[in-house]
C-alpha cells in the first residue's frame, strides 16, 4: 500500500456518476478538473500519512512495552545478593586460637574471643563452634556433655547437619570422653582427627578442621593418671577463607530464597533448610479455613533463646490450617540474634524485649510485656492467642479455636480456651471432637480475652521482684475467681521442650512425651454450645445417668479394673475430703500414668478421661457435687464405695517446686511421697531448691508402692481393695 502512488500523468480521470455516490456528488458541485485532482491527491496523501503514523506508533509502543519488561527483570535481579566481595587475590586468613583445659576453654578468632567458659561446674564436655568459611562468622555454638550418656549421639546428629565446607572447632572442657562412643570417635576420625580413636578419660583435646576438607590443627594431651587431668593445650592455627561464592548455594532468585540465603550465611544446625539441592520449604501455604473466626486474632509467640525450638515451633504453626502469618509476632526475651534470624527466615515479625529480673520473674515480666505489646500492636483485637516456643501446633489448632472462641464472649464463667489437656495422654485421650471444662488453667497454647487482661490481670501483674511463675499466679483463686477453661480431650499442642528453666529430659520423658497430640485435620467439634456453664451441668448429669459404676473391689491400678468394653461410660469414686486432700487422686494418677504432681484437669471434683476406649468419670467424694446423686444406691459396695489412700503412707513435700518448662503449665507441686517406700522422697525434701530433683522425686513411678482402699461414706477404713508394691496392708 505504501508503494502505491497516484499517477497524475496517467489517463485523465473521467468521473462516472455510477461509480460512487460521493464522487459523483463532488463532481457535481465542483466540476473543475484541477480542484478535483488536488482533492483526490490530498485525500490519498492524508490516508498514507495516517497509515505511516499509525504503524510508527504501534512500533513505538511495542518497543516501550518491551523495555518496560526488561527493566522489570533487571530490577528483580538487583536485590540478588549483597555479599561482601573481597578481591579475588586477597583471600583473608583467620588466626584461630583454641584452648582446652580442666577448668577453662576459650576460642579466639582473629583476636576476638568467640567462646570463653571458665565457670566452675558448668560447660563440661566437648564445645563445638562452626565458622562460616567465607566470612569467619560464628554460625553455631554447642556443648555436648559427652561425660553423660547419649550426648555423643546428639553431637553426631549435629555434625551431620553441618554443611560441608564449614570450619569446625572442637575443644574439651573438664571431661568429654567418658560416654564418647566409637561411633562418635569414628565420625571425628572421618572429619580428619588423628587422635580421636585414642581419646580417653580426662584428656585435653582441640581440633580445627574444615568439614570435608583439610585439618588446620589438632592437639591432645593425655591424662597421666585417672585422678588427674591432662595438661592444658593451646592450639594456634590459621584458616584460609574461601570466596563467598563457594560457600553459597545457587537457589532460584526469589524473595523466599533471599531470606534463606541470609539465614544460611549466618547460622548452622538447621538441617535441610540450607541444603543446596532441594532445601526444606520455608513457606507452607496450608489450607485456609472456610469460616475462620480467628483469622484476625493476633498470635503471640513467647520465646527465649532456644532458636532450634523456635524453628520447629514456627514450622508447625505456619503449617496449621487457617494460619494468618500477618498476625504472628514472636517476642524474644533478650537481644539474641539467632532466634531473630529464625523469625526473619519465616518472614515474621519479631520483637525483642530487654530482660527484667531473673528466673521465673524474668519469664513473668516477659509475658506481661509481650501481652501488653500484642494488644498495643492490634488495638482492634478482642483476643490473643498465646503460644510458647517449645510447642508443636496441631494442624487443626486454628479450626479448634475458630469453633470455640465465641464461647469466651458468650459465657462469663470462662477464663480461657486452652489447646492442652493435662490428663490427655496416649492411653487416656481418645476423642478429638470432645471438649471439657476444667477449673485449672493449662496454658500451653491458649486464648486470652483482652478485657480479662486489660481490666484484671495487667494492673496487678506480679512485679519484677516477685519470683512467681506467671501461670501459677494466673491459677490463683484471686485471679481465676472460679472461672474455667475449655480444653479438648486430645491436645492441640505438644510440648517438646526438654531443656528449659523448669524442665529436664527425665521430667519430659515421664510427663510430656506420651501426651496425645491431634494430627487429624478439620475436626468438627461436638456439642460446642453445651460447654456453656449451665448446659455443661446438664451434659454431665446425662453422662452420670448413663454411667455404670466400676467394680470398686478391684485394684484400679490393674488393667482389669475397667472392663474390656468399648464406647461405654463408667464412673468411679475416690475419697477427697477437702480441696487440699489430694492424696487419693495423686495415687490414682500414678497408676493411671497421668499428671500426678498436683491436681489438674477437673471440673467440680470430676475428672473425665478415657480408658480402653471407654469414658471414665472419676468423682471425688464428698467434695464433688456429683457425689450426692442417685449413685450411692446404685453402688455395688455396701453404701458408697470409693477409693481412698491410707494417709499414713504419705507426707506432703509442700512448696516443692516442680521442674517446669519455660513458662509451661505447672504449679506448686504438692508432691506425695512415701518416706517408707520411696527412696527419693527425703532426698527431695532436703533440696527444695533443686527443682530437677523435686521433679525426679516423682520418679520411678511403676515402682512407687501405694495402697488404695475401699471406704464407706463415713470415711471408715474398710478392707483393702488394691495393693501395688511389696507393702501389704496392715
Amino acid at each position: 500500500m505504501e508503494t502505491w502512488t497516484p499517477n497524475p500523468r496517467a489517463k485523465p480521470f473521467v468521473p462516472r456518476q455510477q461509480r460512487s455516490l460521493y464522487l459523483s456528488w463532488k463532481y457535481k458541485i465542483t466540476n473543475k478538473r484541477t480542484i478535483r485532482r488536488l482533492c483526490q491527491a490530498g485525500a490519498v496523501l492524508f490516508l498514507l500519512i495516517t497509515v505511516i503514523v499509525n504503524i510508527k506508533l504501534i512500533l513505538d509502543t511495542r518497543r516501550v512495552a518491551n523495555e518496560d519488561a526488561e527493566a522489570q527483570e533487571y530490577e528483580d535481579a538487583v536485590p540478588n545478593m549483597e555479599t561482601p566481595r573481597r578481591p579475588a587475590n586477597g583471600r583473608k586468613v583467620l588466626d584461630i586460637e583454641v584452648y582446652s583445659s580442666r577448668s577453662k576453654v576459650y576460642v579466639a578468632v582473629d583476636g576476638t574471643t568467640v567462646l570463653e567458659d571458665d565457670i566452675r561446674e558448668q560447660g563440661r564436655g566437648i564445645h563445638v563452634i562452626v565458622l562460616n568459611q567465607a566470612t569467619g562468622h560464628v554460625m553455631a555454638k554447642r556443648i555436648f556433655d559427652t561425660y553423660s550418656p547419649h550426648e555423643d549421639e546428639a553431637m553426631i546428629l549435629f555434625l551431620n547437619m553441618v554443611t560441608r565446607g564449614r570450619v569446625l572447632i572442637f575443644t574439651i572442657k573438664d571431661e568429654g570422653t567418658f560416654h564418647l562412643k566409637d561411633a562418635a570417635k569414628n565420625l571425628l576420625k572421618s572429619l580428619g582427627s588423628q587422635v580421636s580413636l585414642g581419646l580417653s578419660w580426662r584428656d585435653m583435646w582441640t581440633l580445627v578442621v574444615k568439614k570435608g576438607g583439610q585439618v588446620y590443627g589438632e592437639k591432645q594431651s593425655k591424662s597421666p593418671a585417672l585422678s588427674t587431668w591432662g595438661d592444658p593445650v593451646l592450639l594456634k592455627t590459621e584458616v584460609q577463607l574461601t570466596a563467598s561464592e563457594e560457600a553459597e548455594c545457587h537457589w532460584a532468585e526469589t524473595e523466599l530464597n533471599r531470606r534463606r540465603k541470609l539465614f544460611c550465611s549466618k547460622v548452622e544446625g538447621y538441617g535441610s533448610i540450607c541444603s543446596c539441592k532441594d532445601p526444606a520449604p520455608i513457606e507452607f501455604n496450608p489450607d485456609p479455613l472456610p469460616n475462620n473466626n480467628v483469622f484476625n486474632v493476633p498470635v503471640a509467640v513467647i520465646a527465649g533463646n532456644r532458636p532450634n525450638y523456635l524453628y520447629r515451633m514456627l514450622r508447625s504453626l505456619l503449617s496449621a490450617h487457617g494460619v494468618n502469618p500477618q498476625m504472628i509476632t514472636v517476642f524474644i526475651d533478650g537481644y539474641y540474634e539467632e532466634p531473630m534470624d529464625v523469625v526473619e527466615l519465616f518472614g515474621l515479625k519479631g520483637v525483642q524485649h530487654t530482660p527484667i529480673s531473673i528466673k521465673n520473674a524474668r519469664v513473668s515480666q516477659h509475658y506481661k510485656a509481650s501481652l501488653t505489646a500484642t494488644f498495643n500492636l492490634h488495638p482492634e483485637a478482642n483476643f490473643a492467642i498465646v503460644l510458647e516456643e517449645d510447642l508443636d501446633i496441631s494442624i487443626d489448632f486454628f479450626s479448634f479455636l475458630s469453633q470455640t472462641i465465641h464461647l469466651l464472649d458468650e459465657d462469663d464463667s470462662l477464663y480461657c480456651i486452652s489447646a492442652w489437656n493435662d490428663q490427655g495422654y496416649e492411653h487416656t485421650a481418645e476423642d478429638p471432637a470432645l471438649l471439657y471444662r476444667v477449673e485449672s488453667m493449662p496454658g500451653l497454647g491458649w486464648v486470652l480475652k483482652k478485657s480479662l487482661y486489660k481490666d484484671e490481670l495487667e494492673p496487678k501483674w506480679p512485679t519484677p521482684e516477685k519470683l512467681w511463675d506467671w501461670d501459677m499466679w494466673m491459677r490463683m483463686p484471686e485471679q481465676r475467681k472460679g472461672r474455667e477453661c475449655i480444653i479438648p480431650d486430645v491436645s492441640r499442642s505438644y510440648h517438646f521442650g526438654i531443656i528449659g528453666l523448669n524442665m529436664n529430659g527425665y521430667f519430659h520423658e515421664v510427663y510430656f512425651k506420651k501426651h496425645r497430640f491431634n494430627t487429624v485435620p478439620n475436626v468438627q467439634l461436638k456439642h460446642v454450645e453445651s460447654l456453656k456453664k449451665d448446659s455443661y451441668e446438664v451434659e454431665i448429669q446425662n453422662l452420670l445417668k448413663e454411667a455404670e459404676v466400676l467394680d470398686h473391689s478391684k485394684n484400679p491400678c490393674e488393667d482389669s479394673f475397667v472392663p474390656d468394653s468399648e464406647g461405654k461410660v463408667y464412673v468411679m469414686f475416690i475419697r477427697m475430703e477437702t480441696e487440699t486432700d489430694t492424696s487419693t487422686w495423686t495415687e490414682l494418677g500414678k497408676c493411671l500414668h497421668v499428671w500426678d504432681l498436683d491436681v489438674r484437669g477437673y471440673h467440680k471434683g470430676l475428672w473425665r478421661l478415657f480408658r480402653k476406649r471407654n469414658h471414665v468419670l472419676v468423682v471425688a467424694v464428698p467434695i464433688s457435687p456429683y457425689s450426692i446423686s442417685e449413685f450411692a444406691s446404685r453402688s455395688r459396695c455396701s453404701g458408697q464405695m470409693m477409693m481412698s489412700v491410707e494417709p499414713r503412707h504419705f507426707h506432703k513435700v509442700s512448696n516443692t517446686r516442680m521442674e517446669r518448662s519455660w513458662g509451661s503449665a505447672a504449679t506448686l507441686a504438692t508432691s506425695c511421697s512415701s518416706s517408707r517406700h520411696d527412696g527419693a522422697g527425703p532426698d527431695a525434701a532436703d533440696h527444695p531448691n533443686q527443682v530437677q530433683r523435686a521433679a525426679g522425686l516423682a520418679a520411678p513411678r511403676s515402682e512407687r508402692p501405694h495402697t488404695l482402699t475401699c471406704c464407706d461414706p463415713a470415711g471408715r477404713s474398710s478392707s483393702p481393695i488394691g495393693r501395688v508394691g511389696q507393702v501389704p496392708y496392715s
Partner: protein
Amino acid sequence: MPRMNRTAVLSLLIVISSVFLLFQLYYYRKYVSKPGPHILSQTGHLTTSDLQWQTVRLFLVLAHRFHLPVFLVDTTALRLLAHDASWQRELHCSFLCTDRPVMSFALFANMWKFDPAFLSAAKHKGFDVLELRGHDPRLASLDTLSGEDIPLYFLLRLHGFIIQVVFLYERSGNYLWHGPLRLKAKMDLSFAPFKQLDYGRHAGAYNRPDLVLTVLDGLDVRVPRNVSRFLYEQQHSRFLECRYHDARSFLQLYPDDTSPAAVDFHRKAKALLHLAAQTLAVLDVPFWLSSGTCLGWFRQCNIISYSHDVDIGIFITDYRPDIVTAFAAAGLSLKHKFGKVEDSLELSFLSDDVKLDIFFFYEDGDIVWNGGTQAKSGRKFKRVFMSLFIRYIFQRFSLCWAELLELKVRVPCETLDYITANYGTSWSVPVMLWDWKSSPSNVQRNGLWPKHQWADLIQVY
C-alpha cells in the same frame, strides 16, 4: 479498468485508514495514557497543573495496583473540595492542581501488608522515592521492647511534584497515629520542600475518618466524608508520646503501688476518665488533663494511685450549661460547684467514690488561670463559715493529644511548663500530702468571696 481500480483502491484506503485510526485510539488508551487534561490544553504543551494531575494519576494507578488503602488528606485540596471552588478554576483540574508542589495521601497501615514491590514499581514509573522509617510507637511502653522500624512516610517525586504518603497506624486508644517526619543525616535534605509538607512536623493523632469514594478531576479518590471536620482535626492533631524512658527511671525509684486498693482505684479512675471523655465528646467540649492527672501522665505514664481523683481542665469559652445534666445522665452526680461562670468556676462529680474535678480556665492576655475555692462549712447546718478563693496562674498553652489509659486525651503541649507552674521544679518527687491552698507554686490569693454570694458560689451536694 484502471479507473474502476483507482476508486476501489481509494475506498479500500479509507476503510483501512479508519481501521488504523481505531487501532491508534485503542493503543493510545492502552499503552500511553487515558486522554488526560493535556490533550485538552490549548497550548499543546503540558502546563504545571497538567503535570501535577499526571503525577497524582500515576500515583493513584500504582496505589490501585498494589492495593494501597489510601485517601486524600491534602489540606489545600480538601479545602478546595470543602468550598467547592471548581467554578472559579480551570475546568479539568479544579481540586488536585493546588499550585503547591505537594499532595498528601494517608494510608491505613494495618490494612496493607507492606510490599516493597510498590516502591520499585514507583521507581520504575519514574518516581524518585524516599522511604522514612521510625520506631514503632505501639511497642513504646514501660517495658523496653524493640522491633523492626516501621514505615512512616513515602515521598514520591515526579516532575518536581511530591506525593506524600502518610502511614496511619491504629493505636490502642482507638485512634490513628502518624509519626513525625525526621530526616537522618545521610538523607537527601533537598529531596522535597519539607517545610511545605502538611504532615510530619509533629506526630499526629486522628479519629478514624469515614471515607467516601468520589471522582475528583476524573480520578477515583477516597476522601474523608466530613471534610471540614477532618481539616479541623488536622489543625489540632499534634500528638505527644509519653516519656516512657523517664517514666521507667521514675518507677525504678518509686515503684508503682500494686496493692488491691491501688489497683481498684486505677480501675475506677480509668472507667471515670473514659466516661468523662465520652460525655464531653458528645457535647463537643474539648478538655485536657490537669493537675495530678496531668502530672501522672507526664511523670509515670499512668494515674497516680494516691491521688484519689481525676482532674480535667476546660476553657470557660467552651462551657455549656448542659454539662451537668449530661454528666448526670452518664451516672455522675454533681458533688459540688464553686464559683460562677464569670469567675473561678469549678465542678466536681462523683462516680464510684472517685471524684472528677473539672476546672474551668480563663484566658487573660498572656496568662491563663483557674480559680480555687476553699470552703469551710459547719457540718450541722451546712452553713459556710469562711470561703477563700484563689487563682492558679499558667502561661498560655496550646493543646496536644496524648494517650493515657488507652484513651486519646488532650494535654497542654507545654506540659513541663504547665506542671512546673503547679508543682514547682521538684514535681518529679512524689508528695503524698498535697495542700492545694499553699503547696502550688502558682497560687495567688484572691481574697474572700463576698458573703452574700456564698449560697450561689458554694454549692455542696
